[in-house]
């Protein structure tokens, strides 16, 4: 029978071996065996809410759809201009209402079947008729009246009026032979995560919700086979573990990380950071007079905000450069219009006529508007009502909490007291819908086609009321002005890009002059990748645009592993340390056991 002392020694050594053993993989991890297939791992923060293109709404879901499926047309990586997709070429009728697309021949689905015009018609017909499907792609197919296939490789679409967005149809083309099995009712919860059939550059092979999604390259892709063999998208809860994973080499690229994490990654070895222009902006929005579509006033917005001069005064009081420096750490640009500069041809900005940060002008404007400074420096209107506004910030965004604090302090300077409260985006959406707010800080991500963004300020997008129940539209400023609506409707029907641009710019100027929003800044998208492991990243647009989450899959198809495996000076220190500690522990345990057992023998007789 093994004496207790020896049994104890065995247990201790076994436990320590278990502790040290895992250190071995840290070693193995660094020398990927050459024969294995090359895998690129992208770390993201926002889990894909659904792989079903008719259900998913978050940006990462759209990235997955672009990988799995094709679209009729794409956006060029140089400047987002329309480029051929599944449609090799296309013609429009004289009156601009009939579009003919010529489908590329020889394109196969991942299960080997041929992709034909019938699939295109099926995808568009479903987007038009299906409840859930229309909810997702309604604004693309709103004015398509008829879709038909004249032969296997030609599709003809008729529209109620000429529409420039026919070259921006972000409707994925799905295989009819698999999707016909999914009925209208259960499409809402159809997961589409079991090796779905697609024609895109990658094929989904494994989906572990909340953890990772594995795609295999489609080596027969019509626009050229991707250079990597496998793409994995891994999901992380927060910036901290995401940045950590990049440093340990578990992921090769990270996207959408916060400014502070980005800063700390800047000086890390083997990591290249990319501060890319992005199509998003952040604004301070006002409740310019909440009312429903049929004009009935709702909510309890502060009447003073209806007066343009008050809004202009507030705009002058905002020091956008401080936000740029303190909040964005100079990763972005200050802003005026609602279309970001990334879309060079649509973007409008007032240039020298931009409103400068000018507290004196702000005070002057408020005095003119009839709100003199009252007791304690707080301004009040002719009816004695003080200028006290509610300002709502968003719980899920750190920058939002900082912005609202800055805005509160600045407005205090010009005699406006602001009470800040922080809430979830859901609660804020509900509050906006009912008009129960004065000001809030949020932002928009603008699509290549400005139509939807401009529609947000049209009268039609205000809340609707039926039977006492208010349901919110997309307007969050409740701005309603005939001349603006006219401009908006006009641009919807102009085909000639130059003419349409002029109208769009006029609309942006109108919004700026009326200070419907105080657009604060265009923020950059922070990305970082392991330059020691992969190369060939593509910017969209080429002058410093983002590398992933683009309108297209250029980066995924172009990256390739860095061939010359230069000496891996990866933090060997770390590995050596782990093994050193392990060995030390074993030696220590050995000594302890010997001492322990000897002591036991000597005193066996003596111990009580």
């Amino acid at each position: 029978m093994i004496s207790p002392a020896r049994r104890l020694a065995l247990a201790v050594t076994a436990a320590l071996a278990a502790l040290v053993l895992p250190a071995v993989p840290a070693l193995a991890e660094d020398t990927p065996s050459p024969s294995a297939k090359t895998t690129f791992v992208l770390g993201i923060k926002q889990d894909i809410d659904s792989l079903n293109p008719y259900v998913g709404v978050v940006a990462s879901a759209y990235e997955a759809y672009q990988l799995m499926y094709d679209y009729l047309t794409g956006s060029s990586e140089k400047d987002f201009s329309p480029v051929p997709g599944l449609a090799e070429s296309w013609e429009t009728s004289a009156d601009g209402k009939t579009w003919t697309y010529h489908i590329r021949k020889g394109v196969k689905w991942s299960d080997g079947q041929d992709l034909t015009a019938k699939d295109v018609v099926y995808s568009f017909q479903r987007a038009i008729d299906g409840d859930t499907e229309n909810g997702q792609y309604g604004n693309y197919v709103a004015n398509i009246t008829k879709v038909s296939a004249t032969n296997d490789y030609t599709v003809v679409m008729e529209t109620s009026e000429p529409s420039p967005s026919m070259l921006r149809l972000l409707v994925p083309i799905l295989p009819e032979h698999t999707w016909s099995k999914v009925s209208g009712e259960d499409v809402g919860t159809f997961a589409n995560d079991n090796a779905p059939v697609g024609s895109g550059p990658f094929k989904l092979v494994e989906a572990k919700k909340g953890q990772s999604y594995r795609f295999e390259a489609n080596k027969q892709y019509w626009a050229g086979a991707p250079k990597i063999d496998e793409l994995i998208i891994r999901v992380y809860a927060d910036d901290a573990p995401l940045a950590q994973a990049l440093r340990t080499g578990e992921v090769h690229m990270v996207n959408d990380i916060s400014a502070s994490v980005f800063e700390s990654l800047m000086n890390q070895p083997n990591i290249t950071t990319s501060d890319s222009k992005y199509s998003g902006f952040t604004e301070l929005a006002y409740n310019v007079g909440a009312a429903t579509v049929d004009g009935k006033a709702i909510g309890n917005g502060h009447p003073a905000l209806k007066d343009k001069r008050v809004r202009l005064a507030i705009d002058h009081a905002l020091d956008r450069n401080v936000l740029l420096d303190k909040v964005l750490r100079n990763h972005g640009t200050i802003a005026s219009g609602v279309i970001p500069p990334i879309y060079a041809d649509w973007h409008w900005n007032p240039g020298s006529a931009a409103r400068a940060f000018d507290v004196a002008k702000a005070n002057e404007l408020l005095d003119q508007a009839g709100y003199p400074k009252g007791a304690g420096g707080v301004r009040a209107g002719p009816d004695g009502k003080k200028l006290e506004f509610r300002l709502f910030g968003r719980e899920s965004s750190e920058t939002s909490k900082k912005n609202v604090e800055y805005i509160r302090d600045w407005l205090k300077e010009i005699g406006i007291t602001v009470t800040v409260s922080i809430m979830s985006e859901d609660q804020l959406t509900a509050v906006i819908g009912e008009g129960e707010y004065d000001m809030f800080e949020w932002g928009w991500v603008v699509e290549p086609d400005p139509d939807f963004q401009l529609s947000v300020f049209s009268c039609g997008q205000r809340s609707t009321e039926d039977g006492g129940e208010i349901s919110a539209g997309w307007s969050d400023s409740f701005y309603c002005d005939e001349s603006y609506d006219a401009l908006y409707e006009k641009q919807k029907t102009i085909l000639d890009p130059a003419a349409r641009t002029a109208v769009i710019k006029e609309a942006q100027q109108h919004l700026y002059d009326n200070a419907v929003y105080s657009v604060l800044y265009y923020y950059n998208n922070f990305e970082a990748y392991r330059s020691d492991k992969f190369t060939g990243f593509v910017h969209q647009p080429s002058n410093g645009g983002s590398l992933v989450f683009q309108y297209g899959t250029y980066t995924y198809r172009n990256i390739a592993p860095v061939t010359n495996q230069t000496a891996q000076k990866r933090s060997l220190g770390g590995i050596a340390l782990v093994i050193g500690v392990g060995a030390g522990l074993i030696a220590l345990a050995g000594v302890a056991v010997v001492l322990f057992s000897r002591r036991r023998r000597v005193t066996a007789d003596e111990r009580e």
Partner: protein
Amino acid sequence: MTTTTAGGGVRARRPRALPLRYVVRKTVTAFGTLVFVVIVNFFLFRVLPGDPAKAFSPRGRNADPNRLAEIRRDLGLGLPWHEQFWAYVKNLASFDLGVSWGQHAPVSRLIGERLWPTVLLSGTALLLAAGIGMWLGARAGWRHGSRLDRVSSSGAVTLYSTPEWLLGLVLLIVLSDLGVIPAAGMQNPLSELPPALDIAWHMVAPVTVLAVVYIAEYSLIMRSSMLDERYADYLTTARAKGLRDDLVMRRHALPNALLPSITLFFLTLGFVVSGAIGVETVFNWPGLGRLTYDALRGPDVPLLQGLFLTFSAGVILMNLVADLLYPLLDPRVRAS
């Protein structure tokens, strides 16, 4: 006066049967608690302001208003509350916890997928903590007043006062300064290691953090119950029989001291599961804890509802196990 029966035969060992009435009573109370939790859960989420349907089409993607009305009808928000309640209970019976707003997937599937990592992480940490904690607490209680006792109990009180995730955060900072970066998450698809070892490697840091805090708790529990037994008369009898000191402790004091600790072991289980929320977030461990943290953004109400039910059901089940296990261990209870 006394007659010795032939050979002084010893009757067969009596089986340790648990009276059926006791088992039924305990199960019914446990079920009662679960019903209470279901009712609380239902009404709790009816207080929420905000428009659930809106969550289906957040900003940046447009959805026309009538579609929102239709979603509200599916969610049954318009119905009078008692009809909603029966529908809710009926669904619950078939494990249908509704659809998660944030993730557009049935809540029961989400919870099912993320249950195993939490059980793995919390379970390992718990067994480790209970084992080491009780061993340490027993020795500290036995050698009452000795240096080991003073040091281990003051250390335990300190760790007991530390939130688990804080310990995790500090550990991560220290390690990252040292250049040793423990992997985040549960698995690394790139690693050439067999999955089991890879997961083990990822588990080392979070399990250590969780275990250390609960070693403190269990050693305090064990120490106090050992102190209760420390001066009992039957220990003097055992010593008088000639047993060595450590045998007296292991054969006589420990079984008696272990009993109250086992009930407390299950009672504190609820806290272990809650503790996992913090640690899983800091270490990005894809379990129920991080699912709760993700569900807070939004907030994703059906998911939170489902998680709350799962956590409570788990703890209620564990307490039922404790109630049933205790009489098997302590003969005195079985008699009553």
